[in-house]
């Protein structure tokens, strides 16, 4: 055990001290989050969309008129079921349902709001209450029952962070590993290891394990950043998310390893790596939903490992889904790992040019 632990520890130290690598693997994705989060916001609204439903009444009409008259409110009316669905889909900030008058003749209303919207929901609730009280003529005039519903309101930043984590896994794995190994070979490090009793396959394994550990740390840091700056909520089972991170990291590491196998030198390896990572970045749903992309692009996205990595992270993190939803993504990632490793082992040259 000691030999491989020695090697893993050395790899971790080297990665952490390599400032250039740290920039590309951590600062770069963090910048994306900060930039896009600031530009596109965390979904704070200046206007409050209220759905009004339920039994028509004089009070209801007056409330609707009052809200329409205000710049703050956007009023939608419809059937109760439809409005409630719209609330859970994130298209309403609050829904006011008018019920039959109570025994004492007071109008009853139920005010639904989305608990997971956090502060936005509370603002909506108190605003609607104010209007109601005002129109009904004072607090005791109307009974308001507040009912929170739980939906996951996916803001842009919630959507974005898992994508960026996928991107950082891809860069670390593909760019990081490919250039590393070619450099090791070019500079004679592989030969130096070869003259020790330490097997080369363990040397590679140590690098891969160290990289996976670092990828996990990267992902946690990026999530913490998202939480601290933009208040994202991470749902889902942490173990499921961890599995997504690990399989994604392994798939990309294997691709990086394969590239290092048939690259003559570090520049060639970097070219291949960029050739593969750059298009993936824009076609895998990192920045926008794949379903929003043109139809002819859809099949392409289905063969890109990053697509599956992003899905495997986004579904649990934003919608709390479990293994049942992402098992296809995980299988694809595992398959990528296997195929890439086969290619890597087949093509890898331990020696450089003729000595």
């Amino acid at each position, binding site marked *: 055990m000691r030999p491989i632990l020695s090697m893993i520890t*050395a790899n971790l130290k080297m990665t952490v001290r390599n400032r250039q690598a740290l920039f590309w693997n951590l600062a770069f994705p963090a910048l994306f989050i900060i930039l896009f989060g600031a530009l596109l916001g965390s979904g704070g609204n200046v206007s409050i969309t209220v759905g009004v439903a339920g039994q028509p009444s004089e009070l209801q009409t007056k409330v609707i008129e009052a809200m329409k008259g205000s710049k703050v409110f956007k009023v939608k009316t419809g059937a109760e079921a439809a409005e409630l669905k719209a609330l859970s889909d994130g298209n309403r900030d609050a829904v006011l349902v008018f019920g039959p008058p109570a025994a004492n003749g007071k109008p009853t209303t139920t005010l639904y709001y989305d608990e997971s919207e956090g502060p936005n929901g509370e603002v909506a609730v108190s605003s609607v209450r104010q209007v109601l009280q005002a129109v009904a003529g004072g607090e005791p005039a109307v009974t308001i029952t507040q009912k929170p519903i739980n939906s996951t309101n996916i803001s842009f930043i919630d959507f974005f962070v898992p994508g960026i984590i996928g991107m950082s896994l891809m860069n670390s794995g593909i760019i990081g590993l490919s250039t590393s190994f070619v450099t090791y070979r070019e500079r004679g490090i592989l030969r130096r290891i070869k003259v020790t009793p330490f097997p080369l396959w363990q040397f590679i394994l140590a690098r891969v394990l160290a990289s996976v550990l670092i990828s996990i740390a990267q992902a946690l840091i990026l999530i913490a950043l998202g939480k601290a700056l933009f208040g994202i909520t991470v749902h889902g089972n942490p173990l499921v998310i961890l599995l997504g991170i690990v399989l994604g990291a392994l798939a990309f590491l294997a691709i990086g390893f394969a590239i290092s196998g048939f690259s003559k030198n570090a520049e060639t390896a970097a070219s291949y790596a960029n050739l593969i990572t750059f298009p993936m970045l824009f076609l895998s749903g990192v920045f926008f939903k794949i379903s929003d992309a043109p139809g002819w692009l859809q099949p392409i996205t289905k063969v890109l490992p990053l697509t599956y990595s992003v899905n495997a992270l986004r579904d649990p993190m934003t919608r709390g889904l479990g293994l049942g939803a992402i098992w296809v993504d995980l299988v694809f990632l595992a398959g990528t790992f296997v195929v890439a490793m086969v290619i890597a082992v087949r093509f890898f040259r331990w020696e450089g040019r003729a000595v």
Partner: protein
Amino acid sequence: MPDVTVSRRDTSHHSFEGKHSMAETSTAPAAVTTVPRAGTVAPASGPPIIELHDLVKRYGNFTAVDGVSLTVYEREIFGILGPNGAGKTTTLEMIEGLRQPDAGTIRVAGIDAVHDSEAVRRIIGVQLQTTALFDYLTSAELIALFGGLYDKETSAQRVSDLLALVGLSEKRDAKVNEMSGGQQQRLSIALALVNQPQIVFLDEPTTGLDPQARRNLWETIRGVRAAGTTVVLTTHYMEEAEYLCDRVAIMDHGQIIAMDTPAGLIRSLGMAASVQAEVMQGTLPPAALASLAAVTKADFQPESGALRLQTSNVQATLVALLDLAARHQVVLSDLRTTQANLEDVFLSLTGRKYEPGQEPEASAKPARRRRGMF
């Protein structure tokens, strides 16, 4: 992202060191009595620890190692000397397990190195020609890492001892990319010793070092041997072989052309010294040169004007040479005499002047078959 520092030692061009450092103009006595200098007497060495028999390595049509046999004894400093391309490094690599021989046997400490190279690697230490070390790790961390690769715990004391041995104590916490080429080279020797090997292989250990660093390293290597480790080194520096090695094998074109102690090799020449000069004007007939008084071998390159005469009597030859030059109205410059050395041995054995930087038939070596797209 490269995370490796390398210093490539420049082995492509070298002037012959001995010529400049050992120029003497005193005449040597007529009788040849070579007093062995310190370091050329083989100390009490032990039983055989490396045995090569008829080792062969081919690359396509080119035979890099052509039937090499030799024995190295415990606790000796054994040198393999020869120009670039002679096959020294390839021979070493076969012993170390980096290359498979096409024919022949290798026994290291009783182990069949061809079939059980892992067992051999446990008991040897290796310094390769390129000092490839991991960036971002300190000297101490590298020593601990390599110790760990041999499944050995490396105590802080051991780290200090190794660093002190190669004179790098104050670089303990310096990262590799903060060290000079010479320091990196010394560190790689420390790394070769981390597992307390029975034998340490040093491939061109002082190439690229300045003369002072070179001499310091010689003393370090003697210290390593004094501690009980057998040392096998390759070099193309004649002076290094003479000073450092107990026994030397001279290789040329894949074969060993001589093997003995440096003193023994020189003694076998039967010459006392060589007389050298540059012919500035005119030319001298080779026959006349060869028949000058006491000349045992004459080498004259008309294009460069370089003249080298091996002689058993310097005074007699000098007089005869000056006379010949006067008669032919030849201007000689840079006239000097040098005590017999291994360069003369090489010349006498191969008929060629020793040119360490040349790579004979290197172009005949086929490019390694490459896989993949490039």
